[in-house]
């Protein structure tokens, strides 16, 4: 029986090894090499990591100054959307989840261009505000700014935040919440318990999804961010225009390490909420 189980997971394991582990090791090795006149030289050193850490500090800061707020906002909105779908909307809860999921069919680029249309100088929001004489000049902070980036990312990532939090909330019985209320718990007590303790796995999964997707993105900042540069915008040309795969790989691993450190920190912050 055990042998049969191993066989069943073998295809998934093979895919994981060949499409994730091997490329991961390959790019890590490359990150220790160097490039000379467009040729890879197998000369192990840490020069690329030195450059990746010290030459791009401001860019890393810019990237995480957007990705951390996006991960927090999206996780909170996603959690409350899931809460409504799980406990407050009865049989329409599944419809809410279906609506959230169906937005994934829309396509990433289409959403970016849709937000450009909505947030631009002659976009929907500015046109309405000008039409009703609420403003005289278009609001320029909506597009090509961090505000525009956060709005676009939150909209795009919401399904990724809703799914894990809803899965966690399905494990919570309504009787538990009723019992808490009977014992005098206020609304915020219930929410605190659900968010930080009872559904911690789902909430953290949602946070991690959002943080990693935003931190590694380069298309959205390119199209929505105006002149804002993410670390992804510096990494991408290393694999094309520069043909400097070693530095590109070192920058990617540095970004991954920073993201993991943030995730570990958030995990410990959640642990602090555990009952003593």
């Amino acid at each position, binding site marked *: 029986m055990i042998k049969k189980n191993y066989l069943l997971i073998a295809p998934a394991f093979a895919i994981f090894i060949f499409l994730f582990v091997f490329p991961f090791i390959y790019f890590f090795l490359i990150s220790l090499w160097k490039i000379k006149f467009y040729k890879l030289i197998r000369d192990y050193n840490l020069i690329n990591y030195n450059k990746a850490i010290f030459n*791009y500090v401001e860019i890393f800061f810019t990237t995480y100054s957007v990705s951390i707020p996006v991960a927090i906002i999206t996780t909170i909105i996603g959690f409350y959307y899931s809460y409504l779908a799980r406990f407050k909307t009865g049989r329409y809860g599944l419809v809410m989840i279906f609506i959230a999921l169906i937005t994934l069919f829309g396509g990433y680029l289409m959403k970016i261009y849709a937000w450009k249309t909505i947030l631009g100088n002659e976009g929907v929001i500015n046109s309405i505000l000008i039409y009703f004489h609420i403003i005289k000049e278009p609001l320029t902070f909506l597009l090509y700014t961090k505000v525009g980036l956060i709005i676009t990312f939150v909209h795009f990532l919401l399904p990724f935040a809703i799914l894990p939090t809803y899965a966690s909330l399905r494990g919570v019985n309504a009787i538990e919440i009723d019992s808490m209320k009977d014992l005098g718990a206020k609304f915020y007590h219930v929410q605190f318990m659900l968010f930080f303790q009872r559904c911690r796995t789902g909430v953290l999964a949602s946070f991690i999804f959002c943080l990693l997707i935003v931190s590694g993105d380069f298309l959205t900042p390119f199209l929505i961010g105006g002149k804002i540069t993410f670390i992804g915008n510096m990494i991408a040309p290393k694999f094309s225009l520069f043909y400097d795969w070693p530095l590109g790989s070192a920058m990617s691993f540095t970004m991954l390490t920073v993201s993991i450190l943030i995730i570990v920190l958030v995990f410990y912050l959640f642990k602090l909420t555990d009952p003593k």
Partner: protein
Amino acid sequence: MMVAADILQPIDESKVPNLSKIHPFFKDDPNIIVDGVRYGVPFTWGCAPMMYNTKVITSAPESWADLFKPEYAGKVGMMDDPLGNIMLGAVVATDAEVATELTKKQLDDTIKYLISVKKISRLITPSWGDLADAMARGDVIITFSGWETIKKFCADKGASHIDYVYPKEGTFAWLDTYSIAKDAPNPDIDHKLCDMIVDVPAQLFIGDDFIQGITNTDAIAQLGISKDYYPYDDLSGLASKATFFAFPPLEEGSGKTTFNDWLEAYETFKAA
């Protein structure tokens, strides 16, 4: 550069009869003729003009310095084009005779200038299409660098009030050519292809269907819609406004900065 690398074979001009119809501005460009030997057949071209919104800017700007007018602050657009931006920056901000042969100081000055343009810019787009989009939507009203065809992109979006101008400091131009690899197995067919691409039907197709600049004078005379978007009336005069430059050096040793130096310097601009 490709000739120096010994990867091209000379073009036999007798096998490309349409070459005689190419305007001298393109045909005689020194970058494709090395030691009197031709290595390329130029078939399409373009420049990097300044695009502007005629509804907001009623009289055409004259200088790249106009970008820094206080009323345009935060309304300037650029495209993320390392080679083009550094070439144009060098034309505007340095005394370099050839914008692709820069000393370290000239490259540093160019990057400083580009950073100053970035400070007054609202956006840096990944493509010309996105820059056209931003112009048409009114998100920006003037650009650093551009392309004649952007005017058509904008007109297609209903923004026929977007125009371009070649500022007095000048700009760079680009020229695409057909060349033949040194060991190409069928050079006769290759020469026929070189001839075909500068023949009238192909040139009209490139001009009117792709709205790209063309080089054949007979085809230019027959152009339809594309004639409104390129300065065909004064191609000879264009030489005083836009210059073709060879690619920057790839290898060190000439005392000039290499393309790699450019890319590394461009990162400073990106990070600023």
